[in-house]
Structures are given as C-alpha cells and as structure tokens.
C-alpha cells in the first residue's frame, strides 16, 4: 500500500487502536471455543499416572502417611507449621490422621476417585475431587516428592476447569444413552457435557500451555547458571549418576562433541521453548525436542513416570482435530468455516 492512497489516522484513533488490538488479542487467546479432545487424552494419561502413583503409595502406605511414616505426622506439621522456617499454606488434613483404618479408607477412596477420573466417570465431580485428594496427599508426602507430583497436580488442576470428561469417557457413553443433544435438563447437561467446542476447554488448554512455558523457561535459566551446562559436561554428570541411571550410556563419555552438543541443545531449547512453541513453523521442532529430552530422561535416567507425564503435558500444544474421528473432524471444520464466515 502506498502512502498516497492510505487514509490518514486521526490522533484519537491511533491512541485507542493499540489497546483495542491488545484486548482483541487477549479475548481471542482466552475466549475462543476449543474442542475438548486433546484434554480428553491428557485426562486419561494424567488420571492413569496419578492412579499408578497412588497404587505405589498404597503398597507401603504407612511409610508415607500416619504416625510411623518416614516423615511422621508431628514432623510434617512442624515442617509446614513454622517450627523451623516461616509457616506456609501447604496444609493437609492428613497430618492429623493416625488411625490405620481411616488412612486405608481414605486412600482407597482416593484410588477409586482417581480411577473414575481416568476413565471419565462423573468427571465434573471426580476431576476436582481427584485434584483435591492429590493435593492433600502431596502436602502430606513432603520429602518424597519430585517433578512427577508437580506436573500431575498441575494438569489435574487445569483439567478440572474443562469438560475433559466429555470425550473418550464413560460420561460420553452415559450422555449418549440417557440424554439427547437437545436436553433441557441443565443439571444433567452440566454433569454429562457435550463435546462441542467450549471456552472452558480453551482456558484449561491455555493455562497448561503457559504453565509449561514457565516451567521450561526457569528450568533453562537455572541451567544457564551452572558452568557444566556451558562447557557441556552436564550431560556426562547426569548419565554417570549411578542412582538415576536405568540404562548405562556412559559410553557417550568417549564422544565429548556429542554429549556437549546435547547439553547446549537442552539449555537453548528450554529457554526458548516459550517462543518456539507458539509459531506453527517451529512448534514441531519444540515438541520433537520435548519428546527427545523427556524420552531420554525416561529411558536412561530412571524417571519413566516423570518423562512420560512431561510428554503428556506437551500434548496441550496438539490440535484437538488430531484426536477426532473423520466424521468429527469434518463437523469441526464445517463449524470453523461457519465461524470464520
């Protein structure tokens, strides 16, 4: 467009144009309806991972909760209650539960709720409940937690905000059986939501995406503070840590150019993930590196659960259409076309 043909912009317009564009972009980012299919897949994976974690805790329940746990009730209350450092808000009623029967009943209830969440049964209720029970457990298990617990709790929190149980779920079967799409029973329609695009599915997806960007940004910035991530030996020190090691790849030590390159790629990928994952052109690269890095952690550093859940979290950047049937995809494309029109 040449300058001679463009319309002059008034001062008033130019003052308001930027904030208007900003509000428009915010509105479109958060409030554009999105199909829940990706979240449905993430729900199954997160639910199963939480279920597995609860079952492992159940195998040695009184090592983790109760008066004779590794960190007993009195000590955990002191750690969070301000006896050594300022008190924090990471509270759990499990600090006060000592009765073995009650602890077992509570844990069995947690397992049942989490299983229901994973299969998508009464998800509107079981999703927030599974998150809350997980939260109470992590606040009780301080000292034995790691990245897996951080990421599963985070995913469960965001999933409960969305109709993640509307697809790949028992809820969907129940809706098909007992409700027609045009049901006017609002309670049932809320309990068994349809799989139509929704703003809440979009908000949950956006929150997972942004949270992941923050995790990687600070993960990368922390690495950038260490000299071994700059000289490239960090990968060597990670793979030669006997307590992490699950498959011995110390032969890599004979190839310094390779392991140092892996260190550099890891740091740059983590720091710039928050920029690379948004453009469609670089997103496949950012996600492929996520699979490579977390797959490596899962296979070689003994953290199969953590590596897997990080890959699951990265799925938030995949389009819902990838998980739709052909028929659903055509419907979604038609709806999208009508929205654009």
């Amino acid at each position, binding site marked *: 467009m040449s300058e001679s043909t463009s319309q002059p912009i008034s001062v008033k317009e130019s003052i308001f144009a930027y904030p208007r564009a900003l509000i428009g972009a*915010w*509105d479109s980012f*958060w*409030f554009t*309806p999105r199909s829940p299919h990706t979240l449905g897949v993430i729900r199954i994976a997160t639910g199963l991972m939480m279920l597995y974690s609860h079952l*492992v805790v159940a195998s040695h329940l009184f090592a*983790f909760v109760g008066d004779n*746990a*590794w*960190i*007993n009730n*009195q*000590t955990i209350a*002191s*750690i969070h209650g301000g*006896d*050594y450092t300022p008190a*924090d*808000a*990471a509270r759990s009623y499990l600090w006060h539960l000592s009765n073995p029967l009650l602890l077992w009943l509570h844990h069995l209830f947690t397992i049942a709720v989490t299983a229901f969440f994973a299969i998508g049964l009464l998800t509107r209720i079981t999703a927030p409940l599974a998150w809350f029970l997980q*939260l109470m457990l992590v606040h009780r298990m*301080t*000292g*034995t937690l790691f990245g897996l617990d*951080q990421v599963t*709790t*985070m995913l469960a929190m965001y999933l409960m905000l969305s109709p993640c149980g509307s697809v790949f779920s028992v809820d969907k079967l129940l809706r098909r059986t007992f409700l027609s799409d045009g049901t006017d029973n609002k309670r049932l329609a809320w309990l068994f*939501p349809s799989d*139509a*695009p*929704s*703003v*809440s599915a979009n*908000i949950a997806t956006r*929150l997972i995406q942004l949270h992941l960007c*923050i995790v*990687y940004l*600070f*993960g990368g910035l*922390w*690495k950038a*503070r260490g000299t*071994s991530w700059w000289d490239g*030996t*960090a990968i*060597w020190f990670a793979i*030669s*840590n*006997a*307590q992490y090691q*699950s498959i*011995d790849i*110390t032969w890599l*030590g004979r190839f310094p150019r390779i392991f140092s390159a892996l260190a550099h790629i890891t740091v740059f990928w983590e720091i710039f993930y928050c920029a690379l994952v948004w453009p469609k052109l670089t997103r496949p690269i950012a996600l492929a590196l996520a699979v490579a890095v977390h797959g490596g952690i899962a296979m070689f550093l*003994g953290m*199969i*659960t953590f590596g897997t859940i990080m890959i699951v979290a990265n799925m938030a950047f995949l389009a819902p259409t990838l998980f739709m049937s052909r028929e659903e995809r055509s419907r979604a494309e038609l*709806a999208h076309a*009508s*929205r654009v029109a």
Partner: protein
Amino acid sequence: MQPNPTNTHPSWFADWRVRLGVSALVIGHLWAVVGRPLEFATQGPFGTSPSASTFYAPVRGYSQFVYLDHGYAFFAPEPGPSHYFQAAIDEAGQKRIERKFPDLEDQWPRLLYHRHFMLAEFLNDVYHPPGDAPEEIASNPEAVAEWKRGRKRYEDVRDSIVKHLRSEYPRSEVAIRRVEHRQPGLPEFLNENVGVRDERLLRVLLDSMGVDSALPPVGPVGPPESVALPPAEAAR
C-alpha cells in the same frame, strides 16, 4: 468482545463482565505460577531479590496451597552428586540387618525407589551441623535462633526416619548414616577406569561440623551417625 460462535457450549462467557472477571482470575493465577520460580531464581549469597519477594508476596499463600511453589531447577545449576542413607538394624541376639535407601534391589517398582531417593536427598538437604552457631553470627540473636531451628529440623527429620525403621523392626536398635555418591569425572572414568559404582566415589557424611568436606573418599564402611548407636560401629 464478540459473543460465542455457533455450535459451541452455551456459554456464560458471552457476557463481557464474565470475561473480565475470568481475565482477572487468570492474571492472578499466572502471577502465582510465575512468582515462586522468579523468587527462587533470584536467590543470591545475600538472600532473595527484594523486588522478586515483594512481587511474590501477595500470591504466596495461594501458590503454596495449590502446590505451585516450585523453582523448576531440574538438574540445575549443576547435576551434582546424589545421596542415600544406610540403616544398621540390630536386634538383640540376631544378626545385624543392613538396608540402603534408595536401593533398586529393595524398592520396586522404580517409582517407589524414586520416592526413597527423594527422601534421602531431603535428609541431605535439611542437614545442619550440630554445635553452637559460628562466631560470625553469634552476636545476631535472630541468626543464632535460625541456626538452632535449622539443626532442630534436621534432627526431627532424622529421628522420624529412625522411628519409621523402628516401627518396622520392633525391639531393635536402629542407626542411620548419610552417604554421598558422586559421579566420576571424565578423566577418572576414561583414564583411571573409575566406574560409576566405584567405591572411591562414596563418602560417608558424618554428623559433625566442618569435617565432612575434609574427609577422604571412603567406601561404604564407616561409623553410623550418632543416633541410637548400635553396639558395633562397623557396618560390615
């Protein structure tokens, strides 16, 4: 703001006031998501950045309750050594039982092993030497009180671990000791054939002030910590 397009959930979000409220909640939540990692990353030798702490303060409680208060410093700033603890369990007239936490042969599946691994790292993280506060902080009552609280925390965590083992082995004397397992440097590995499980990489961390780092590397044999000492000192 435009209302929802067709073929979507009937939505409250069509109302701009709802969107405004939700936007405020989203901003507040993201504040909490970024607040703790920012505060954690800005720690230096003289404490945390005052501006980062001030930024995080209003959302600290929320962030702690919903378990967002993490630093995300995975394998950073350096992938350092790992730690485990050994337990010597003596029942009168019985053979001594020795256990290690974590131990792949004892704790299965891997997630259970990893929980014990994190417990050993936690015990190591909260370690605080015994004795009076060092001279440089002795004139500062607040720093001395903090010093004492640090030691108390370590003792309580250590005693809790010992109590758990005693609950598994009633009528037994239990002692634990911390061991550091460092990685071999590349020259050691390549030129001196020091494997990742070489005993020269192990170091018993004694519960005394200032001497740990001066100890030469030793194998798994050594005195347990001074908790409920069993009759014999040598683990094997």
